[in-house]
Protein backbone atom coordinates (compact mmCIF):
# COMPACT_ATOMS: atom_id res chain seq x y z
CA UNK A 1 0.00 0.00 0.00
CA UNK A 2 2.81 2.36 0.82
CA UNK A 3 4.83 1.68 -2.29
CA UNK A 4 4.05 3.37 -5.57
CA UNK A 5 0.38 3.07 -6.35
CA UNK A 6 -0.24 1.14 -9.55
CA UNK A 7 -2.02 3.38 -12.06
CA UNK A 8 -4.89 0.92 -12.25
CA UNK A 9 -5.76 1.77 -8.67
CA UNK A 10 -5.39 5.51 -9.17
CA UNK A 11 -7.55 5.80 -12.23
CA UNK A 12 -10.03 2.98 -12.35
CA UNK A 13 -12.94 4.85 -13.86
CA UNK A 14 -11.37 7.47 -16.08
CA UNK A 15 -12.63 6.83 -19.57
CA UNK A 16 -9.75 8.26 -21.46
CA UNK A 17 -6.84 8.06 -19.09
CA UNK A 18 -7.51 4.50 -18.01
CA UNK A 19 -7.36 3.37 -21.61
CA UNK A 20 -4.18 5.23 -22.28
CA UNK A 21 -2.66 4.15 -19.04
CA UNK A 22 -3.06 0.47 -19.62
CA UNK A 23 0.46 0.33 -20.97
CA UNK A 24 1.83 1.68 -17.71
CA UNK A 25 0.91 -1.37 -15.73
CA UNK A 26 4.00 -2.94 -17.19
CA UNK A 27 6.16 -0.47 -15.30
CA UNK A 28 9.33 -2.40 -14.56
CA UNK A 29 8.93 -3.54 -10.98
CA UNK A 30 12.53 -4.66 -10.76
CA UNK A 31 13.65 -0.98 -10.66
CA UNK A 32 15.39 -0.23 -7.39
CA UNK A 33 13.97 2.31 -4.97
CA UNK A 34 16.25 5.20 -4.18
CA UNK A 35 16.87 5.92 -0.51
CA UNK A 36 18.49 9.39 -0.94
CA UNK A 37 15.59 10.55 -3.09
CA UNK A 38 13.11 9.20 -0.57
CA UNK A 39 14.88 11.02 2.26
CA UNK A 40 14.91 14.29 0.30
CA UNK A 41 11.20 13.98 -0.40
CA UNK A 42 10.47 13.16 3.23
CA UNK A 43 12.28 16.36 4.20
CA UNK A 44 10.04 18.26 1.81
CA UNK A 45 7.03 16.48 3.28
CA UNK A 46 8.10 17.63 6.76
CA UNK A 47 7.96 21.26 5.60
CA UNK A 48 4.41 20.83 4.31
CA UNK A 49 3.19 19.04 7.42
CA UNK A 50 5.00 21.23 9.97
CA UNK A 51 2.33 23.97 10.25
CA UNK A 52 -0.41 21.36 10.51
CA UNK A 53 1.53 19.53 13.21
CA UNK A 54 1.94 22.83 15.04
CA UNK A 55 -1.80 23.49 14.72
CA UNK A 56 -2.61 20.06 16.14
CA UNK A 57 -0.31 20.62 19.12
CA UNK A 58 -1.42 24.21 19.65
CA UNK A 59 -5.08 23.29 19.75
CA UNK A 60 -4.43 21.22 22.88
CA UNK A 61 -3.13 24.26 24.77
CA UNK A 62 -4.63 27.05 26.80
CA UNK A 63 -3.71 30.56 25.68
CA UNK A 64 -1.22 30.76 28.58
CA UNK A 65 0.45 27.53 27.51
CA UNK A 66 0.69 28.79 23.93
CA UNK A 67 3.02 31.48 25.23
CA UNK A 68 4.75 29.47 27.93
CA UNK A 69 5.49 26.08 26.34
CA UNK A 70 7.48 25.08 23.27
CA UNK A 71 5.31 25.33 20.16
CA UNK A 72 6.16 22.00 18.61
CA UNK A 73 5.41 19.81 21.59
CA UNK A 74 2.57 19.26 24.07
CA UNK A 75 2.38 21.22 27.29
CA UNK A 76 2.03 19.44 30.62
CA UNK A 77 -1.74 20.01 30.66
CA UNK A 78 -3.30 19.18 27.28
CA UNK A 79 -6.90 20.34 27.03
CA UNK A 80 -8.11 19.67 23.50
CA UNK A 81 -11.64 18.79 24.59
CA UNK A 82 -11.97 21.91 26.73
CA UNK A 83 -10.85 24.01 23.77
CA UNK A 84 -13.27 22.30 21.40
CA UNK A 85 -16.11 22.79 23.85
CA UNK A 86 -15.26 26.46 24.35
CA UNK A 87 -14.95 26.99 20.60
CA UNK A 88 -18.47 25.69 20.09
CA UNK A 89 -20.00 27.60 23.02
CA UNK A 90 -18.29 30.99 22.53
CA UNK A 91 -20.73 33.77 21.54
CA UNK A 92 -23.79 31.51 21.89
CA UNK A 93 -22.42 28.81 19.62
CA UNK A 94 -21.77 31.06 16.63
CA UNK A 95 -18.92 28.82 15.50
CA UNK A 96 -21.27 25.95 14.72
CA UNK A 97 -23.42 28.39 12.81
CA UNK A 98 -20.39 29.46 10.71
CA UNK A 99 -19.54 25.83 10.08
CA UNK A 100 -23.08 25.04 8.92
CA UNK A 101 -23.18 28.18 6.76
CA UNK A 102 -19.93 27.10 5.11
CA UNK A 103 -21.23 23.58 4.49
CA UNK A 104 -24.40 25.02 2.97
CA UNK A 105 -22.68 27.63 0.76
CA UNK A 106 -19.99 25.23 -0.40
CA UNK A 107 -22.34 22.27 -0.88
CA UNK A 108 -24.97 24.11 -2.90
CA UNK A 109 -22.35 25.94 -4.98
CA UNK A 110 -20.36 22.79 -5.70
CA UNK A 111 -23.33 20.65 -6.77
CA UNK A 112 -24.82 23.50 -8.79
CA UNK A 113 -21.56 24.45 -10.47
CA UNK A 114 -20.73 20.84 -11.32
CA UNK A 115 -24.16 20.20 -12.87
CA UNK A 116 -24.11 23.46 -14.83
CA UNK A 117 -20.60 22.74 -16.10
CA UNK A 118 -21.49 19.15 -16.98
CA UNK A 119 -24.60 20.13 -18.94
CA UNK A 120 -22.76 22.98 -20.67
CA UNK A 121 -19.66 20.92 -21.39
CA UNK A 122 -21.77 18.09 -22.81
CA UNK A 123 -23.79 20.57 -24.90
CA UNK A 124 -20.65 22.15 -26.34
CA UNK A 125 -18.90 18.83 -26.94
CA UNK A 126 -21.66 16.75 -28.46
CA UNK A 127 -24.03 19.12 -30.26
CA UNK A 128 -23.61 21.29 -33.28
CA UNK A 129 -25.48 24.55 -33.22
CA UNK A 130 -25.10 28.12 -34.32
CA UNK A 131 -22.73 30.04 -32.05
CA UNK A 132 -21.31 26.94 -30.38
CA UNK A 133 -17.72 27.86 -31.04
CA UNK A 134 -18.12 31.59 -30.36
CA UNK A 135 -19.89 31.02 -27.05
CA UNK A 136 -17.32 28.47 -25.93
CA UNK A 137 -14.44 30.76 -26.82
CA UNK A 138 -16.07 33.57 -24.86
CA UNK A 139 -16.17 31.36 -21.76
CA UNK A 140 -12.61 30.17 -22.38
CA UNK A 141 -11.40 33.77 -22.51
CA UNK A 142 -13.13 34.40 -19.19
CA UNK A 143 -10.87 31.85 -17.49
CA UNK A 144 -8.25 34.58 -17.49
CA UNK A 145 -10.43 37.26 -15.94
CA UNK A 146 -9.55 37.45 -12.26
CA UNK A 147 -12.52 36.77 -10.01
CA UNK A 148 -11.55 39.51 -7.59
CA UNK A 149 -11.67 42.11 -10.34
CA UNK A 150 -15.32 41.07 -10.60
CA UNK A 151 -16.03 41.02 -6.88
CA UNK A 152 -16.44 44.74 -6.30
CA UNK A 153 -18.69 45.41 -9.33
CA UNK A 154 -20.66 42.27 -8.44
CA UNK A 155 -21.12 43.67 -4.96
CA UNK A 156 -22.41 46.95 -6.36
CA UNK A 157 -24.83 45.15 -8.69
CA UNK A 158 -26.04 42.87 -5.89
CA UNK A 159 -26.53 45.89 -3.65
CA UNK A 160 -28.93 47.29 -6.24
CA UNK A 161 -30.75 43.96 -6.52
CA UNK A 162 -31.04 43.62 -2.74
CA UNK A 163 -28.95 40.45 -2.69
CA UNK A 164 -26.19 41.75 -0.45
CA UNK A 165 -26.12 40.18 3.01
CA UNK A 166 -28.02 37.08 1.87
CA UNK A 167 -26.70 33.55 1.17
CA UNK A 168 -27.34 34.15 -2.55
CA UNK A 169 -24.55 36.71 -2.60
CA UNK A 170 -22.09 33.87 -1.94
CA UNK A 171 -23.77 31.06 -3.85
CA UNK A 172 -24.67 32.75 -7.16
CA UNK A 173 -21.15 33.92 -8.13
CA UNK A 174 -19.74 30.51 -7.18
CA UNK A 175 -22.04 28.72 -9.62
CA UNK A 176 -20.20 30.01 -12.68
CA UNK A 177 -16.94 28.15 -13.13
CA UNK A 178 -15.46 28.78 -16.61
CA UNK A 179 -12.57 26.40 -16.05
CA UNK A 180 -15.02 23.75 -14.90
CA UNK A 181 -16.94 24.13 -18.16
CA UNK A 182 -13.73 23.81 -20.16
CA UNK A 183 -12.75 20.71 -18.20
CA UNK A 184 -16.16 19.10 -18.69
CA UNK A 185 -16.13 19.79 -22.42
CA UNK A 186 -12.74 18.18 -22.84
CA UNK A 187 -13.85 15.30 -20.69
CA UNK A 188 -17.22 14.80 -22.42
CA UNK A 189 -15.61 14.65 -25.84
CA UNK A 190 -13.85 11.40 -24.97
CA UNK A 191 -15.86 9.92 -22.14
CA UNK A 192 -19.25 10.04 -23.90
CA UNK A 193 -19.17 7.85 -27.02
CA UNK A 194 -21.46 8.99 -29.83
CA UNK A 195 -22.54 5.39 -30.38
CA UNK A 196 -24.17 5.19 -26.95
CA UNK A 197 -26.03 8.45 -27.58
CA UNK A 198 -27.23 7.18 -30.96
CA UNK A 199 -28.38 3.88 -29.47
CA UNK A 200 -30.31 5.67 -26.73
CA UNK A 201 -31.95 7.97 -29.28
CA UNK A 202 -32.95 5.08 -31.50
CA UNK A 203 -34.56 3.52 -28.41
CA UNK A 204 -36.57 6.73 -28.20
CA UNK A 205 -35.04 8.16 -25.03
CA UNK A 206 -35.53 11.90 -24.53
CA UNK A 207 -32.45 14.14 -24.44
CA UNK A 208 -32.95 15.07 -20.77
CA UNK A 209 -33.29 11.42 -19.82
CA UNK A 210 -30.15 10.54 -21.79
CA UNK A 211 -28.26 13.26 -19.96
CA UNK A 212 -29.35 12.36 -16.44
CA UNK A 213 -29.35 8.58 -16.86
CA UNK A 214 -26.36 7.97 -19.10
CA UNK A 215 -24.18 11.01 -19.66
CA UNK A 216 -23.82 12.11 -16.04
CA UNK A 217 -22.65 8.63 -15.11
CA UNK A 218 -20.07 8.60 -17.90
CA UNK A 219 -18.84 12.02 -16.81
CA UNK A 220 -18.39 10.78 -13.21
CA UNK A 221 -14.71 11.49 -12.50
CA UNK A 222 -14.77 14.85 -14.31
CA UNK A 223 -17.92 15.78 -12.44
CA UNK A 224 -16.39 14.91 -9.07
CA UNK A 225 -13.31 16.94 -9.98
CA UNK A 226 -15.30 20.08 -10.72
CA UNK A 227 -17.45 19.42 -7.66
CA UNK A 228 -14.49 19.06 -5.32
CA UNK A 229 -12.60 22.04 -6.65
CA UNK A 230 -15.64 24.30 -6.49
CA UNK A 231 -16.24 22.97 -2.99
CA UNK A 232 -12.71 23.96 -2.00
CA UNK A 233 -12.92 27.34 -3.73
CA UNK A 234 -16.19 28.21 -1.98
CA UNK A 235 -15.18 26.69 1.35
CA UNK A 236 -11.96 28.71 1.29
CA UNK A 237 -13.46 31.87 -0.16
CA UNK A 238 -12.72 34.91 1.92
CA UNK A 239 -12.85 37.98 -0.31
CA UNK A 240 -16.41 37.55 -1.56
CA UNK A 241 -18.12 36.86 1.82
CA UNK A 242 -15.98 39.57 3.39
CA UNK A 243 -17.45 42.22 1.13
CA UNK A 244 -20.95 40.73 0.70
CA UNK A 245 -21.91 39.93 4.30
CA UNK A 246 -22.01 42.03 7.43
CA UNK A 247 -24.31 39.91 9.59
CA UNK A 248 -22.12 37.57 11.72
CA UNK A 249 -24.90 34.97 11.64
CA UNK A 250 -24.35 34.62 7.88
CA UNK A 251 -20.54 34.43 7.99
CA UNK A 252 -18.76 31.40 6.63
CA UNK A 253 -15.98 29.94 8.72
CA UNK A 254 -13.21 31.94 7.01
CA UNK A 255 -14.68 35.36 7.75
CA UNK A 256 -15.76 34.25 11.23
CA UNK A 257 -12.32 32.95 12.17
CA UNK A 258 -10.60 36.05 10.88
CA UNK A 259 -12.95 38.24 12.94
CA UNK A 260 -12.03 36.19 16.03
CA UNK A 261 -8.35 36.47 15.14
CA UNK A 262 -8.66 40.25 14.91
CA UNK A 263 -10.38 40.26 18.33
CA UNK A 264 -7.63 38.13 19.84
CA UNK A 265 -5.00 40.42 18.35
CA UNK A 266 -6.62 43.64 19.50
CA UNK A 267 -7.41 42.24 22.95
CA UNK A 268 -3.73 41.59 23.48
CA UNK A 269 -2.95 39.48 26.54
CA UNK A 270 -5.78 41.06 28.51
CA UNK A 271 -9.53 40.64 28.51
CA UNK A 272 -9.99 38.43 25.46
CA UNK A 273 -6.77 36.52 25.86
CA UNK A 274 -8.49 33.14 25.76
CA UNK A 275 -9.69 34.01 22.22
CA UNK A 276 -6.34 32.91 20.87
CA UNK A 277 -6.86 29.28 21.89
CA UNK A 278 -10.29 29.40 20.27
CA UNK A 279 -8.91 30.75 16.98
CA UNK A 280 -6.34 27.96 16.89
CA UNK A 281 -8.83 25.20 17.77
CA UNK A 282 -11.42 26.62 15.37
CA UNK A 283 -8.80 26.60 12.60
CA UNK A 284 -8.11 22.93 13.21
CA UNK A 285 -11.81 22.03 13.17
CA UNK A 286 -12.42 24.01 9.99
CA UNK A 287 -9.83 22.17 7.91
CA UNK A 288 -10.80 18.62 8.89
CA UNK A 289 -13.88 18.18 6.60
CA UNK A 290 -12.03 19.15 3.42
CA UNK A 291 -8.96 17.10 4.18
CA UNK A 292 -11.14 14.06 4.79
CA UNK A 293 -13.15 14.71 1.61
CA UNK A 294 -9.99 14.93 -0.48
CA UNK A 295 -8.47 11.80 0.97
CA UNK A 296 -11.65 9.80 0.48
CA UNK A 297 -12.35 10.95 -3.07
CA UNK A 298 -8.76 11.01 -4.34
CA UNK A 299 -9.21 8.41 -7.09
CA UNK A 300 -11.85 10.63 -8.71
CA UNK A 301 -10.21 14.04 -8.66
CA UNK A 302 -6.83 12.73 -9.67
CA UNK A 303 -8.13 11.09 -12.83
CA UNK A 304 -10.34 14.11 -13.57
CA UNK A 305 -7.37 16.44 -13.32
CA UNK A 306 -5.36 14.22 -15.62
CA UNK A 307 -7.64 14.91 -18.57
CA UNK A 308 -7.73 18.67 -17.91
CA UNK A 309 -3.99 19.04 -17.53
CA UNK A 310 -3.04 17.08 -20.62
CA UNK A 311 -5.19 18.74 -23.21
CA UNK A 312 -4.53 22.42 -22.96
Amino acid at each position, binding site marked *: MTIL*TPPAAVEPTAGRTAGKDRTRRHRPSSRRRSTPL*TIAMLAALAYFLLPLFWLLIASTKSTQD*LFNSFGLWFSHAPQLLTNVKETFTQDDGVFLRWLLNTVMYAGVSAVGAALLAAAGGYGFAK*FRFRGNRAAFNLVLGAVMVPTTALAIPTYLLFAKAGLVNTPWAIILPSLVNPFGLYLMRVYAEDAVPDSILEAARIDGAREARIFFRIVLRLLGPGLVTVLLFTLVATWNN*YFLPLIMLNDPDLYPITVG*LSSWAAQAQNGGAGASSDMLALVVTGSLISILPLVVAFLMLQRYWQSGLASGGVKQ
Partner: protein
Amino acid sequence: MTATAAASAKGRRRDGPTSPRRGGKSRRISAGPLFVAPFMVLFLLLFLAPLGYAAYLSLFQERLIGGTVFVGLDNYAQALGDSQFLHGVGRVALFFLIQVPVMLLLALLFALALDSGLLRLARVIRLGIFVPYAVPSVVATLMWGYLYGPDFGPFAQLSRDLDLPVPDFLSEGWMLGSLANIVTWEFVGYNMIILYAALRTVPTELYEAAAVDGAGAWRIAWSIKLPALRPALLLTLLFSVIGSFQLFNEPKLLMNVAPDVISSSYTANLYAYSLSFTGQQVNYAATVSFLLGLVIVIASYGVLLTANRRSTS
Protein backbone atom coordinates in the same frame (compact mmCIF):
# COMPACT_ATOMS: atom_id res chain seq x y z
CA MET B 1 -0.35 16.55 -28.99
CA THR B 2 -2.81 19.41 -28.83
CA ALA B 3 -3.16 19.59 -32.57
CA THR B 4 -3.89 15.91 -33.05
CA ALA B 5 -6.38 15.85 -30.19
CA ALA B 6 -8.23 18.85 -31.58
CA ALA B 7 -8.24 17.41 -35.08
CA SER B 8 -9.63 14.06 -33.98
CA ALA B 9 -12.31 15.77 -31.92
CA LYS B 10 -13.29 17.91 -34.87
CA GLY B 11 -13.39 14.92 -37.17
CA ARG B 12 -15.62 13.02 -34.81
CA ARG B 13 -18.01 15.89 -34.45
CA ARG B 14 -18.20 16.34 -38.18
CA ASP B 15 -19.24 12.80 -39.03
CA GLY B 16 -21.14 12.27 -35.77
CA PRO B 17 -24.22 14.43 -36.21
CA THR B 18 -24.55 13.95 -39.97
CA SER B 19 -24.59 10.17 -40.00
CA PRO B 20 -27.86 9.40 -38.15
CA ARG B 21 -31.34 9.72 -39.55
CA ARG B 22 -32.74 13.15 -40.23
CA GLY B 23 -35.05 13.13 -37.18
CA GLY B 24 -32.16 12.45 -34.81
CA LYS B 25 -30.14 15.24 -36.30
CA SER B 26 -32.74 17.93 -35.88
CA ARG B 27 -33.34 16.92 -32.28
CA ARG B 28 -29.64 17.16 -31.55
CA ILE B 29 -29.51 20.62 -32.98
CA SER B 30 -32.43 21.76 -30.86
CA ALA B 31 -31.19 20.16 -27.62
CA GLY B 32 -27.65 21.57 -27.69
CA PRO B 33 -28.47 25.17 -26.80
CA LEU B 34 -30.76 23.95 -24.02
CA PHE B 35 -27.89 22.15 -22.30
CA VAL B 36 -25.65 25.17 -22.69
CA ALA B 37 -28.25 27.78 -21.77
CA PRO B 38 -28.27 27.54 -17.94
CA PHE B 39 -24.54 28.04 -17.73
CA MET B 40 -24.50 30.78 -20.36
CA VAL B 41 -27.34 32.75 -18.73
CA LEU B 42 -25.57 32.76 -15.36
CA PHE B 43 -22.30 33.52 -17.11
CA LEU B 44 -23.86 36.59 -18.72
CA LEU B 45 -25.44 37.79 -15.48
CA LEU B 46 -22.60 37.07 -13.08
CA PHE B 47 -19.52 37.42 -15.25
CA LEU B 48 -20.11 39.71 -18.20
CA ALA B 49 -22.59 42.03 -16.50
CA PRO B 50 -20.29 42.93 -13.56
CA LEU B 51 -17.41 43.34 -16.00
CA GLY B 52 -19.47 45.72 -18.13
CA TYR B 53 -20.71 47.51 -15.04
CA ALA B 54 -17.15 48.04 -13.80
CA ALA B 55 -16.21 49.48 -17.18
CA TYR B 56 -19.24 51.76 -17.06
CA LEU B 57 -18.60 52.95 -13.50
CA SER B 58 -14.98 53.70 -14.27
CA LEU B 59 -16.08 56.42 -16.69
CA PHE B 60 -17.81 58.48 -13.98
CA GLN B 61 -16.84 60.47 -10.93
CA GLU B 62 -18.83 61.48 -7.89
CA ARG B 63 -18.38 65.13 -7.13
CA LEU B 64 -19.55 67.26 -4.24
CA ILE B 65 -21.09 69.68 -6.67
CA GLY B 66 -23.03 68.25 -9.59
CA GLY B 67 -23.28 64.64 -8.33
CA THR B 68 -22.13 61.89 -10.64
CA VAL B 69 -20.44 63.26 -13.74
CA PHE B 70 -19.21 61.54 -16.88
CA VAL B 71 -15.46 62.08 -17.01
CA GLY B 72 -14.33 59.82 -19.85
CA LEU B 73 -10.96 58.31 -19.16
CA ASP B 74 -9.99 60.70 -16.35
CA ASN B 75 -10.08 57.93 -13.73
CA TYR B 76 -7.67 55.87 -15.81
CA ALA B 77 -5.33 58.82 -16.20
CA GLN B 78 -5.47 59.30 -12.44
CA ALA B 79 -4.78 55.61 -11.72
CA LEU B 80 -1.83 55.49 -14.10
CA GLY B 81 -0.28 58.37 -12.19
CA ASP B 82 -1.30 57.04 -8.76
CA SER B 83 1.85 55.90 -6.98
CA GLN B 84 -0.15 53.76 -4.52
CA PHE B 85 -1.72 51.77 -7.36
CA LEU B 86 1.53 51.51 -9.28
CA HIS B 87 3.44 50.38 -6.20
CA GLY B 88 0.77 47.78 -5.50
CA VAL B 89 1.03 46.41 -9.04
CA GLY B 90 4.82 46.56 -8.88
CA ARG B 91 4.83 44.62 -5.62
CA VAL B 92 2.64 41.79 -6.97
CA ALA B 93 4.71 41.72 -10.17
CA LEU B 94 7.85 41.27 -8.06
CA PHE B 95 6.03 38.65 -6.01
CA PHE B 96 5.10 36.85 -9.23
CA LEU B 97 8.66 36.93 -10.58
CA ILE B 98 10.12 35.45 -7.38
CA GLN B 99 7.46 33.20 -5.96
CA VAL B 100 6.02 31.54 -9.08
CA PRO B 101 9.30 30.15 -10.48
CA VAL B 102 10.20 28.72 -7.06
CA MET B 103 6.77 27.19 -6.61
CA LEU B 104 6.53 25.67 -10.10
CA LEU B 105 10.10 24.38 -10.00
CA LEU B 106 9.40 22.62 -6.69
CA ALA B 107 6.12 21.24 -8.05
CA LEU B 108 7.93 20.00 -11.16
CA LEU B 109 10.75 18.34 -9.22
CA PHE B 110 8.28 16.67 -6.86
CA ALA B 111 6.12 15.45 -9.76
CA LEU B 112 9.16 14.01 -11.56
CA ALA B 113 10.36 12.34 -8.36
CA LEU B 114 6.93 10.80 -7.78
CA ASP B 115 6.73 9.61 -11.38
CA SER B 116 10.26 8.17 -11.41
CA GLY B 117 9.14 5.09 -9.49
CA LEU B 118 12.24 5.41 -7.31
CA LEU B 119 10.43 6.59 -4.19
CA ARG B 120 9.36 4.65 -1.18
CA LEU B 121 6.19 5.91 0.53
CA ALA B 122 5.27 7.69 -2.72
CA ARG B 123 1.56 7.72 -1.96
CA VAL B 124 2.00 9.19 1.51
CA ILE B 125 4.38 11.83 0.17
CA ARG B 126 2.07 12.77 -2.70
CA LEU B 127 -0.98 13.23 -0.49
CA GLY B 128 0.98 14.92 2.30
CA ILE B 129 2.36 17.58 -0.03
CA PHE B 130 -1.10 18.11 -1.50
CA VAL B 131 -2.93 18.48 1.82
CA PRO B 132 -2.18 22.23 2.29
CA TYR B 133 -4.35 22.91 -0.77
CA ALA B 134 -7.37 21.79 1.26
CA VAL B 135 -6.50 24.31 3.99
CA PRO B 136 -8.31 27.65 3.56
CA SER B 137 -5.90 30.49 2.88
CA VAL B 138 -7.33 32.23 5.94
CA VAL B 139 -6.30 29.35 8.18
CA ALA B 140 -2.96 28.98 6.39
CA THR B 141 -2.18 32.65 6.94
CA LEU B 142 -3.29 32.57 10.58
CA MET B 143 -1.08 29.51 11.20
CA TRP B 144 1.97 30.90 9.49
CA GLY B 145 1.34 34.28 11.12
CA TYR B 146 1.54 32.62 14.53
CA LEU B 147 4.54 30.53 13.48
CA TYR B 148 6.35 33.68 12.30
CA GLY B 149 5.38 35.61 15.42
CA PRO B 150 7.93 36.84 17.97
CA ASP B 151 5.93 35.75 21.05
CA PHE B 152 5.06 32.08 20.78
CA GLY B 153 6.25 31.15 17.28
CA PRO B 154 8.53 28.12 17.50
CA PHE B 155 11.23 29.83 15.40
CA ALA B 156 11.45 32.70 17.88
CA GLN B 157 11.34 30.25 20.81
CA LEU B 158 14.19 28.19 19.37
CA SER B 159 16.31 31.26 18.65
CA ARG B 160 15.82 32.52 22.21
CA ASP B 161 16.75 29.13 23.66
CA LEU B 162 19.89 29.07 21.57
CA ASP B 163 20.69 32.74 22.32
CA LEU B 164 20.47 33.62 18.64
CA PRO B 165 18.91 36.83 17.33
CA VAL B 166 15.16 36.35 16.89
CA PRO B 167 14.29 36.52 13.17
CA ASP B 168 11.54 39.05 12.55
CA PHE B 169 9.63 37.44 9.71
CA LEU B 170 6.97 40.13 9.90
CA SER B 171 9.32 43.07 9.39
CA GLU B 172 9.34 45.16 6.24
CA GLY B 173 12.38 43.45 4.78
CA TRP B 174 11.03 39.93 5.30
CA MET B 175 7.33 40.47 4.61
CA LEU B 176 7.22 39.75 0.87
CA GLY B 177 9.29 36.61 1.44
CA SER B 178 7.04 35.55 4.30
CA LEU B 179 3.97 36.01 2.09
CA ALA B 180 5.67 34.08 -0.73
CA ASN B 181 6.36 31.24 1.69
CA ILE B 182 2.68 31.02 2.66
CA VAL B 183 1.49 30.98 -0.96
CA THR B 184 4.16 28.45 -1.91
CA TRP B 185 3.14 26.22 0.98
CA GLU B 186 -0.49 26.39 -0.12
CA PHE B 187 -0.07 25.70 -3.84
CA VAL B 188 3.00 23.54 -4.54
CA GLY B 189 0.94 20.40 -3.95
CA TYR B 190 -1.87 21.49 -6.23
CA ASN B 191 0.51 22.23 -9.09
CA MET B 192 2.42 19.04 -8.39
CA ILE B 193 -0.77 17.00 -8.76
CA ILE B 194 -1.60 18.61 -12.12
CA LEU B 195 1.91 17.90 -13.43
CA TYR B 196 1.96 14.41 -11.97
CA ALA B 197 -1.40 13.59 -13.54
CA ALA B 198 -0.06 14.76 -16.91
CA LEU B 199 3.08 12.62 -16.52
CA ARG B 200 0.98 9.52 -15.86
CA THR B 201 -0.50 9.74 -19.35
CA VAL B 202 2.85 9.49 -21.17
CA PRO B 203 3.02 5.97 -22.62
CA THR B 204 5.81 3.89 -21.05
CA GLU B 205 6.87 2.59 -24.46
CA LEU B 206 8.60 5.92 -24.97
CA TYR B 207 10.71 5.44 -21.83
CA GLU B 208 11.50 1.87 -22.73
CA ALA B 209 12.59 2.86 -26.24
CA ALA B 210 14.74 5.64 -24.81
CA ALA B 211 16.27 3.30 -22.25
CA VAL B 212 17.11 0.82 -25.01
CA ASP B 213 18.84 3.69 -26.81
CA GLY B 214 20.92 4.22 -23.69
CA ALA B 215 19.20 7.26 -22.17
CA GLY B 216 19.51 7.65 -18.40
CA ALA B 217 16.84 8.86 -15.97
CA TRP B 218 17.87 12.53 -16.27
CA ARG B 219 18.00 12.34 -20.06
CA ILE B 220 14.53 10.79 -20.17
CA ALA B 221 13.18 13.45 -17.82
CA TRP B 222 14.68 16.23 -19.94
CA SER B 223 13.92 14.93 -23.43
CA ILE B 224 10.64 13.09 -22.99
CA LYS B 225 8.92 14.07 -19.76
CA LEU B 226 9.49 17.84 -19.91
CA PRO B 227 8.17 18.26 -23.48
CA ALA B 228 5.17 16.09 -22.58
CA LEU B 229 4.51 18.37 -19.61
CA ARG B 230 4.40 21.56 -21.67
CA PRO B 231 0.60 21.98 -21.79
CA ALA B 232 0.22 21.18 -18.10
CA LEU B 233 3.07 23.55 -17.17
CA LEU B 234 1.45 26.29 -19.21
CA LEU B 235 -1.82 25.70 -17.39
CA THR B 236 -0.19 25.96 -13.96
CA LEU B 237 1.72 29.04 -15.07
CA LEU B 238 -1.47 30.76 -16.23
CA PHE B 239 -3.23 29.99 -12.96
CA SER B 240 -0.22 31.34 -11.10
CA VAL B 241 -0.28 34.62 -13.05
CA ILE B 242 -3.94 35.07 -12.20
CA GLY B 243 -3.45 34.05 -8.57
CA SER B 244 -0.42 36.15 -7.73
CA PHE B 245 -1.55 39.38 -9.37
CA GLN B 246 -4.76 39.35 -7.34
CA LEU B 247 -3.01 38.60 -4.06
CA PHE B 248 -5.38 39.65 -1.28
CA ASN B 249 -6.22 37.17 1.51
CA GLU B 250 -2.72 36.68 2.85
CA PRO B 251 -1.72 40.37 3.12
CA LYS B 252 -5.18 41.32 4.37
CA LEU B 253 -4.89 38.89 7.27
CA LEU B 254 -1.25 39.62 8.08
CA MET B 255 -2.27 43.27 8.29
CA ASN B 256 -3.71 42.42 11.74
CA VAL B 257 -0.34 41.17 12.93
CA ALA B 258 1.85 43.73 11.16
CA PRO B 259 -0.21 46.88 10.57
CA ASP B 260 2.89 49.05 10.19
CA VAL B 261 4.34 46.95 7.39
CA ILE B 262 1.25 46.19 5.31
CA SER B 263 -0.53 49.35 4.27
CA SER B 264 -4.01 49.49 2.80
CA SER B 265 -2.44 49.67 -0.67
CA TYR B 266 0.15 46.90 -0.18
CA THR B 267 -1.23 45.00 -3.19
CA ALA B 268 -3.37 46.37 -6.02
CA ASN B 269 -6.32 44.26 -4.96
CA LEU B 270 -6.08 45.38 -1.36
CA TYR B 271 -6.04 48.95 -2.65
CA ALA B 272 -9.24 48.44 -4.67
CA TYR B 273 -10.87 46.91 -1.60
CA SER B 274 -9.84 49.79 0.66
CA LEU B 275 -10.96 52.35 -1.90
CA SER B 276 -14.46 50.99 -2.15
CA PHE B 277 -15.11 49.88 1.43
CA THR B 278 -13.27 52.37 3.61
CA GLY B 279 -12.82 55.22 1.16
CA GLN B 280 -16.26 54.98 -0.49
CA GLN B 281 -14.63 55.85 -3.82
CA VAL B 282 -16.70 53.39 -5.82
CA ASN B 283 -15.92 54.74 -9.26
CA TYR B 284 -12.20 54.89 -8.69
CA ALA B 285 -12.25 51.41 -7.11
CA ALA B 286 -13.98 50.07 -10.23
CA THR B 287 -11.27 51.70 -12.34
CA VAL B 288 -8.51 50.10 -10.28
CA SER B 289 -10.24 46.67 -10.43
CA PHE B 290 -10.68 46.99 -14.16
CA LEU B 291 -7.07 48.04 -14.72
CA LEU B 292 -5.83 45.20 -12.53
CA GLY B 293 -7.93 42.78 -14.58
CA LEU B 294 -6.38 44.25 -17.71
CA VAL B 295 -2.87 43.83 -16.32
CA ILE B 296 -3.62 40.17 -15.58
CA VAL B 297 -5.09 39.50 -19.03
CA ILE B 298 -2.05 41.13 -20.66
CA ALA B 299 0.35 39.16 -18.45
CA SER B 300 -1.53 35.93 -19.28
CA TYR B 301 -1.38 36.58 -23.00
CA GLY B 302 2.29 37.46 -22.61
CA VAL B 303 2.90 34.06 -21.05
CA LEU B 304 0.93 32.32 -23.81
CA LEU B 305 2.69 34.17 -26.60
CA THR B 306 6.14 33.51 -25.15
CA ALA B 307 5.33 29.83 -24.77
CA ASN B 308 3.97 29.54 -28.31
CA ARG B 309 6.87 31.38 -29.86
CA ARG B 310 9.29 29.09 -28.08
CA SER B 311 7.48 25.98 -29.28
CA THR B 312 7.47 27.02 -32.95
CA SER B 313 11.07 28.18 -33.09
